[in-house]
């Protein structure tokens, strides 16, 4: 990133307090994900049935759950896993999607049509059901949740990358690169791909939030991560069942964490769009 980009980013952030707050909060989340397990007051998986389902107190800020585990500790510790799930799912689909999409967008022709067909098939699937089926088929391990989430995002990335590359493939600098002795492949990988990256960054940040929600949805129907691993989605899904009995803290705190995280990513995505939008630059 050049200093001009940074300056521009700073400018956009100043004009857009929401993005600035979101950026700060995201940074906070990341820090929390890293140091979380070290700072929490209780072992997030240690049960204490004698103190089950207690409302928030000074000892347990967010109350305790059905097994008497400290909700606060669980919410904090879950940040790492949730961010990891979101990040790895998105990175996976982004990496695959960007490369495939770029190649399609650049070459056009038969490859493009073949991949297009595949994307059509994927898109025609009810995607959440596809994710469910994948997790059901492969087993509900974190890897599989990541893979399923990545897969259902893949078509969007392919399409996006394809479209972005398509508008650039006739750009002068692409031809110039070829005149400078680059092969088609290296044009795609070294020139086009880095150029569509900023535009895709927006998509990525929006998708990060979506990936977490997806994992939460899977948890709700019982296909989430394994117990007793703390994860927001599964905590919300379990806590949601206690709403009617008034044990609000079980759903409220992990839910707020989840919301907060998704909200940050979404706002960040919006802001990123402005930062990266060349029209916003002068």
């Amino acid at each position, binding site marked *: 990133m050049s200093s001009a980009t940074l300056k521009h980013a700073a400018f956009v952030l100043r004009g857009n307090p929401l993005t600035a707050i979101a950026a700060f909060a995201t940074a906070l989340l990341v820090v929390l994900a890293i140091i979380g397990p070290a700072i929490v007051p209780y072992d997030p998986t240690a049960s204490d049935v004698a103190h089950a389902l207690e409302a928030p107190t000074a000892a347990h800020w967010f109350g305790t759950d059905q097994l008497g585990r400290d909700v606060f500790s669980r919410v904090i510790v879950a940040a790492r896993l949730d961010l990891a799930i979101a990040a790895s799912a998105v990175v996976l689909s982004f990496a695959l999607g960007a490369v495939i999409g770029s190649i399609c967008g650049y070459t056009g022709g038969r490859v493009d049509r073949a991949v297009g067909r595949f994307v059509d098939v994927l898109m025609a699937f009810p995607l959440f059901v596809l994710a469910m089926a994948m997790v059901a088929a492969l087993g509900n391990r974190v890897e599989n949740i990541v893979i399923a989430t990545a897969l259902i995002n893949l078509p969007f990335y392919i399409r996006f990358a394809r479209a972005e590359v398509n508008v650039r493939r006739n750009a002068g600098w692409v031809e110039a690169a070829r005149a400078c002795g680059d092969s088609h492949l290296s044009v795609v990988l070294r020139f086009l791909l880095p150029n569509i990256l900023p535009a895709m960054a927006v998509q990525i940040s929006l998708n990060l939030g979506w990936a977490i929600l997806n994992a939460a949805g899977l948890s709700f129907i019982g296909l989430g991560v394994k117990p007793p691993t703390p994860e927001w989605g599964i905590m919300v899904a379990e806590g949601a069942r*206690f709403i009617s009995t008034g044990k609000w803290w079980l759903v409220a705190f992990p839910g707020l964490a989840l919301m907060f995280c998704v909200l940050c990513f979404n706002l960040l995505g919006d802001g990123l769009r402005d930062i990266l939008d060349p029209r916003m630059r002068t």
Partner: protein
Amino acid sequence: QTRAETLRYVTGATVNTLDPTMPGSTREAFAVSLSTYDRLVSFGRKQLNGKWVFDLDTVRGELAESFDVSPDGLKITFHLRKDAKFQDGTPVTAEDVKWSLDRAVTANSLAKAQLLTGSLTSTDQFKVIDPYTVEVTLPKPDKLALPNLATVYPVIFNSKVAKAHATAEDPWAQTWLKDNTAGSGAFLIETYKPGEQVILKRNDAWTRSASNGQAAFKRLIVQTVPEAATRANLVERGDADIVIDLQPTDAAALEQKGKLKVISTPQYNAINFISFNNKIPPFDNPNVRKAIAYALPYEDMFKAALFGRGYPLYGATWADGKAPSGGFPIPQPVNTDLAKAKEYLKAAGMPDGFSTTFSFNVGQANVVEPMAALLKESLAKVGIKVDIQKLPDAQMSTLINEKKVPFFTEGIVAWLPSMDYFYRNFYIGNIRWNYSSLDNPQITEIAQAARFEQDKAKYEAMGRELNTLHFEIMPQIPVWQASQDAVMAPSIEGYTYQFHRQVDYRDLSRK
């Protein structure tokens, strides 16, 4: 009819057939069939700890006005009620009974396997004596023959109507009966939307209720509401009249609020186990199984998973190490004792523990997930590292059937909960329900013998022996009998815990 004359029952499951014998029938389908069809006999009821439960030992006539058992126990003669009419107005005759029982033992259906347990296997065993008398012959005297006829399968069809819808490929009209009824029961189907709801209306001609009258409700709605919390809301707000499958938390909360009537009955014909496949190492080693039995955090699990709603099967003391009773199940003399668990592990040659996977059903996650988490935590204390695996229901049942799950939790139910029935159906042979894959000649032999043992004292002794053996080899660990929490509007009366763990709608009335 008014709202007061309507009973609205909500459930998380669905009714998927009107013919209870269809393979794949759900429990809700059984409950509906109980109201739309009559059987020859039904169970009586008794009070247990102040709650009404079905009584396996009293069988009373339903379509049969009376029945006699021959002294050698080989012949049962049923005398049909003369006033019984099918819902189309035609009388119920011995022909219909014969056709229905023939169907039960012939057609490819659930009934066949069930009736087998009562020595009912062939059409030759059913004989029409006269239009109102049917005789059932048994090859051997069998305690379970009569009770079997009281289960949900041997319902009596209107054979004329059924035959009219039979085809060459489908001689027993199974296709038609799946979506239609031809019975003589207390209710008629008004609308049937599989997976959504069944609405029934009273058959005014039916007068065989406990008080020899019509069913109390004029209309009956059986509705699927998948979200348990919503079911709790519905019944609490008075929009639903009765529900039996709430989460234990909700049931406990509603009971505490005291606005509704909550009848909590331990499912005394069902048992929850922590199971091992005794063929898969290290669980082939009884010491390992015992180690786990002493490492389980019973109290915590019972509290966290069931909120204490059930009948614990742990924590007993057997004075001389022998089973004090011959019933099944009985509380086991185990409790959480990590030192003992470690000793057993040492005896098993694994003083540092081992790693394994503990599996359970997604469908039971509400209850089992906290249990699994506690189990994992507690076993870790003796060095057993547990990875928890949550499987979709179909996968879990498949894997269990293929005997591929080493360590898991599951439950069993027996409609006819006699001691030998449990041992014969859940501990013998390469069948799905033999969770522990037990293959113990001694247990097999005693259980088979007990089946036909007519002497009560000897039967009791056999039971004690089996129970003692069971504890010694510990093929699996019975943990508790969960309660069935029937939560209902205060005005609802007459609820009885039934063998099929469903509401018998005919029993209910509104104050």
